[in-house]
């Protein structure tokens, strides 16, 4: 008996080793577990990338090896074993997907219903084999044709690396250099895919990008890379994410987003982040380490970040603006909600380099349960930024007495003509407010939802209409069970 068991174990081990052992077979759908130069080569080969891009990735990887994981954020999580993860997996084939909604987690479907998501979209979101559902491809094709007519390029990052290598080469890493920070460098080495947008001179993008595509742009993976370039006088509004909760097998996410706005260009970037936050004990949630930065490279350019953050177990994210061009404008509007054991450390950086640059920061943090929420922001005015202006408002709302909120604003000014304003408030959802609402007929959850939506109103108004409506519902769902 003992001998049999030993044999079984030995075979298991051998098979296991083979399964996870090193292999550069690019026919495989999955890169072997672990991270080394071969993993990077595997990913690049899989995507059939030009040689320069592979070199770029390898440079980033070598640099990453010398870097230390940052520990300054007010988040705590178990040490990540980077060798114990997969860095590339091909999109799932239809054979792996659920055949119908009957095979999907009922809890997930319940949430979809609460959000009012139509059935077909539910199927697509839950990963039901899409061709069995509806012909989404033709819808996407129609919109792509419309964009093409306007001269707008909107495609996956991998496609852009093939089709528009010159543009990619010219702009990639110019806003977030591969050496920027631990997670951005990791992303530079192993990014899986993402979006590429190019809006040529003078073009106003005829539609909000990604509203119609969001169902189709799945499986972009854990290391997303997005690059958006808007030329002189052009405009784009880009919507990222989805209010519907997305399940992902990968716990570690490290995305990079780079925005470039040339003279008189405007970019509006809206995000709804609803990754799996983990269960009530905080198990299994996503770690979300994101580097997002916009470069107002041209004069009179403008970049706005609007975000609704409700998901992830750990969020580490500071969408920033480099206000390089004279008269350029940066904006950051944020709602960050944390419940149960979620931890959020988020904020923005506004770097004023050009003359008469202005920035506006409105951050609304809502903490419930045992969660912790930190606003961390930097407003920096450099020597030559004559006439720079900033207005910052950070409001925190606490629900219950087990959560916490922190505000860490850094302000540095090297130009005496700068005018910087900072306002911060912390309030608690009061029993009086709850009682008042309930006396008018709302139950406890409806009352919390109404009050929190009121608290976030300034920011919700900045979201594109459809996103705003969905976000309101999302906020309600995120705070379920946070009172009595």
């Amino acid at each position, binding site marked *: 008996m003992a001998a049999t068991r030993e044999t079984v174990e030995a075979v298991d081990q051998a098979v296991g080793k083979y399964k996870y052992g090193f292999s550069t077979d690019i026919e495989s759908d999955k890169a072997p577990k672990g991270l080394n130069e071969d993993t990077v080569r595997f990913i690049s080969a899989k995507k059939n990338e030009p040689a320069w891009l592979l070199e770029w990735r390898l440079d980033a990887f070598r640099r990453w090896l010398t870097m230390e994981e940052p520990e300054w954020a007010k988040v705590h999580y178990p040490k990540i074993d980077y060798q114990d993860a997969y860095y590339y997996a091909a999109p799932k084939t239809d054979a792996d997907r659920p055949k119908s909604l009957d095979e999907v987690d009922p809890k997930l479907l319940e949430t979809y219903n609460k959000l009012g998501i139509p059935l077909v979209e539910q199927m697509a979101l839950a990963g039901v084999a899409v061709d069995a559902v509806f012909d989404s491809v033709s819808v996407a094709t129609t919109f792509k044709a419309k964009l093409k007519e306007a001269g707008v390029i909107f495609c996956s990052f991998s496609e852009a690396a093939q089709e528009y290598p010159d543009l990619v080469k010219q702009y990639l890493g110019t806003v977030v250099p591969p050496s920027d920070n631990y997670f951005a460098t990791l992303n530079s080495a192993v990014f899986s895919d993402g979006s590429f947008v190019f809006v040529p001179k003078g073009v106003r993008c005829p539609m909000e990008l990604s509203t119609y595509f969001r169902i189709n742009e799945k499986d972009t993976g854990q290391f997303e890379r997005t690059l958006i370039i808007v030329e002189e006088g052009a405009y784009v509004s880009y919507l990222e994410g989805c209010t519907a909760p997305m399940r992902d097998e990968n716990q570690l996410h490290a995305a990079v987003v780079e925005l470039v706005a040339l003279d008189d260009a405007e970019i509006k970037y809206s995000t709804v982040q609803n990754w799996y936050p983990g269960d009530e004990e905080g198990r299994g949630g996503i770690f979300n380490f994101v580097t997002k930065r916009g470069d107002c490279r041209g004069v009179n350019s403008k970049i706005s970040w609007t975000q609704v953050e409700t998901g992830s177990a750990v969020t580490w994210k500071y969408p920033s603006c480099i206000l390089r061009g004279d008269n350029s404008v940066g904006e950051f509007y944020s709602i960050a909600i944390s419940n149960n054991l979620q931890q959020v450390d988020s904020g923005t950086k506004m770097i004023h380099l050009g003359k008469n640059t202005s920035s506006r920061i409105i951050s609304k943090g809502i903490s419930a349960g045992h969660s912790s929420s930190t606003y961390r922001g930097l407003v920096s005015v450099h020597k030559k930024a004559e006439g720079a202006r900033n207005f910052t408002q950070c409001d925190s709302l606490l629900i219950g007495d087990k959560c916490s909120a922190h505000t860490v604003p850094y302000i540095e000014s090297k130009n005496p003509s700068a005018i910087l304003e900072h306002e911060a408030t912390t309030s608690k959802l009061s029993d009086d407010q709850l009682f008042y609402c309930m006396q008018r*007929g709302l139950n406890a959850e409806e009352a919390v939802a109404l009050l929190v939506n*009121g608290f976030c109103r300034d920011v919700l108004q900045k979201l594109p209409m459809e996103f705003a409506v969905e976000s309101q519902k999302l906020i309600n769902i995120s705070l379920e069970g946070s009172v009595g």
Partner: protein
Amino acid sequence: MTTPLLEIRDLHVIIKGEGKEILKGISLTVPEGEVHAIMGPNGSGKSTLSNVLAGREDYEITSGTILYKGKDLTELAIEERAAAGIFLAFQYPTEIPGVTTMTFLKTAVNAQRKARGEAELNAVEFLKLVRGKAKALNVSEDMLKRPLNVGFSGGEKKRAETLQMSLFEPSLAVLDETDSGLDIDALKVVAEGVNALRAANRSMIVITHYQRLLDYIVPDHVHVLAHGRIIRSGGKELALELERTGYADIGESAA
């Protein structure tokens, strides 16, 4: 004999956690369609009574019963009492930042309708309803667009409360010190609104420290509350007597 709308019997109430008894055996019967005034000095338990009727959880009933429409009121949650027709006009209406008065009213009206199994009103139906009621109470369109009670003057706050009362059409309205913070002109406007809502199927409990309010909202009965007990009950003339003699005399004569 018909069942009275509200029947309170020997009600004893303490503050949760503190154990201090605030109401020490109150009995009060309010038949349908009547207006009862409860008068009393500060600290007599007036506001506690209104909060207990609304179901606020800071209080604990240690003994006694409250029957509303013949049923035990204490079994209902706060919002269920609202849907069942109990309305509390607050002495100090709470500010609701970021939520326009219009949004608040619509959310509340529909929450109550939903709880009663009635169809919810859509935006157009609601707008029509609220505009009609607002006009009658001199509530401007601008006020409806502002966040509820935020930056409202004392008069505006009380008018917003009265507007809610007229929208919800309660069976029992409890007006908690509606006169506080109002000058005489504002008081008249609010009283007019309240009087317009007097109806055969609606009872009111008007809680006040001063007789002044009762010049405008004339009650059917007056009760004097002191030290957690109703020490005297009578007709509207009792309020005038109080005005002359003060609470101290009445308290002493009862003791």
